[in-house]
């Protein structure tokens, strides 16, 4: 398939079920809310090495947050409920609780819950205060700049999807990055998804396994342009650089919407200024139950 000069492979992205949760982090200013969120979502690019995948879904205005201050919504994804609970508690405890003027609320609602303030309240050493109003439960934990206000629980979803992806291939690093940036910007407007890698972009896509026994994932040599002659390459002669966008979403529909938006952005940019080819990563369709076919997502 060719759209605006961009070759789009007739393939699909293979994605996996994940557990996910959401948080709203607020502070006295958007800068400080972002600071807390960026800190807690650091080192959360891949469940393989980080325990969870996390990112800022969007910024929130004063009208959208429980305490009428600016904030951000953060999403976290993990492979099991217990790991998600562990990551949530550790990251909020070390990165949000410690951030100046912060507060933390549920960013996802549902029947199933994860502990938030319920797990962190013990930091109050007996001075923590429980408050219930408006059908919600909060913990007030005294800290040195006042109080850390934290909702007792947040929602858990088992319908989340991790690993939606696009492989963006360009004739130069600069053009490939331009296409990837356009895709990230487009996905930024889609609700309920995150892109966990730095700036939303991964340059070190991996394959399963390695020649080394202890290494579970290694470089995706078929997509490394400098190995084109040395390995069984997946690259065309005009491709000099490949970048990957990985998308995690609270629902399959959210991931599909994000992939659709990003494909549209890449195609709109065109082959001259951006990508010459777009593909997606899969394992033959045998491992992940969610298949996002690029053909169906094209604008």
């Amino acid at each position, binding site marked *: 398939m060719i759209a605006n000069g961009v070759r789009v492979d007739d393939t699909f992205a293979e994605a996996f079920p994940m557990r996910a949760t959401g948080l709203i982090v607020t502070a006295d200013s958007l800068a400080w809310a972002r600071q807390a969120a960026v800190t807690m979502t650091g080192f959360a690019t891949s469940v393989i090495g980080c325990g969870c995948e996390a990112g800022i879904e969007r910024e929130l205005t004063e009208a959208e947050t*429980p*305490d*009428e201050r600016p904030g951000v919504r953060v999403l976290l994804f993990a492979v099991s409920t217990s790991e998600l609970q562990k990551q949530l508690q550790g990251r909020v405890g070390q990165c949000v609780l410690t951030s100046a003027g912060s*507060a933390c609320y549920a960013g996802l609602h549902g029947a199933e819950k994860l502990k938030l303030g319920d797990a962190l309240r013990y930091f109050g050493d007996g*001075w923590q*205060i*429980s*408050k*219930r*109003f*408006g059908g919600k439960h*909060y913990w*007030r934990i005294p800290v040195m700049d*006042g*109080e850390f*206000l934290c909702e007792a629980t947040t929602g858990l979803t088992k319908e989340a999807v991790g690993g939606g992806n696009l492989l963006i291939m360009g004739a130069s690093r600069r053009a490939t990055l331009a296409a990837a940036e356009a895709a990230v910007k487009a996905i930024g407007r889609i609700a309920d998804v995150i892109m966990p890698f730095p700036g939303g972009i991964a340059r070190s896509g991996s394959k399963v396994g390695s020649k080394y026994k202890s290494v579970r994932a290694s470089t995706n040599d078929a997509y490394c342009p400098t190995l084109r002659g040395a390995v069984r390459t997946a690259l065309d002669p005009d491709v000099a650089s490949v970048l990957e966008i990985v998308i995690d979403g609270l629902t399959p529909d959210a991931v599909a919407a994000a992939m659709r938006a990003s494909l549209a952005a890449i195609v709109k940019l065109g082959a001259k200024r951006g990508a010459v080819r777009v593909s997606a990563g899969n394992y033959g369709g045998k491992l992940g139950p969610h298949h996002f076919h690029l053909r169906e997502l094209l604008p």
Partner: protein
Amino acid sequence: MRPLVLALRGVPDQRLDLSGLVPQLIAGKTAAEIARIELQTTRVRATVGDLFQLRMGGAERIRIENACDRLDGIGHRMTGGEIVVEGSIGSQAGRLMAGGRLTIAGDVGPWAASGMRGGTIEIAGRAGDRLGGPLPGETAGMRGGVVIVRKDTGDRAGDRMRRGLILIEGGARRYAGCRMIAGTLVVRCAAGELPGYLMRRGSIVLADGAAELSPTFVDCGVHEVLALRVMARCVSAYSARLASVLRRPLRRLAGDMGVLGKGEIFTPP
């Protein structure tokens, strides 16, 4: 659907117990069955049919017209639906209420919302003593839900309150929030002597301060408490005046140090 209307014919000769006239107990009954419900509190039998003019409608909404202060126990153990009362009523309105909405256009007597667990009570007039409080022998008062009083309350509003929200747009008399176990009490106008007397936990907000504060409360300074700001958003659905109070910096007094000391009273700076 039209409400079920009970119009009181005149002031009754005895106090009446209306605890049986709640939506979940009336649902499915015919007019004749409702008319036979006994309300007396003395040996003189008095039924709904004797005392009220009944206009049938859906039991989910009950309207009591021409009410007087001899009607006790309205909304007792109510679990859902709505009761609207036109006029003032007697004691224990909304006692042990678990859900639904009770609206009273006039005043209420003592022990309104006593032991309440959920739902909403709105009182357009004054509330008597021990709003939300326990009856003698009970260990806790209000356990949940929201009570809004548009005018003043009597003594001991929120006595032994364990959970929930009491909003008073007028003033409160002596011992507001005494023996509180937890929960939140907000008073817009001045409170009487010794608010929070022997409170263990919980929050009392006195927007106009109190006539006399107990020396067993300690000054923690003036603060902008974020939890109150979050609460303001919830309170604004019931009272914009009280919500604005919660958004201001307030002086925090911790106490009552005579007991556990983990409660708090907020007063103007």
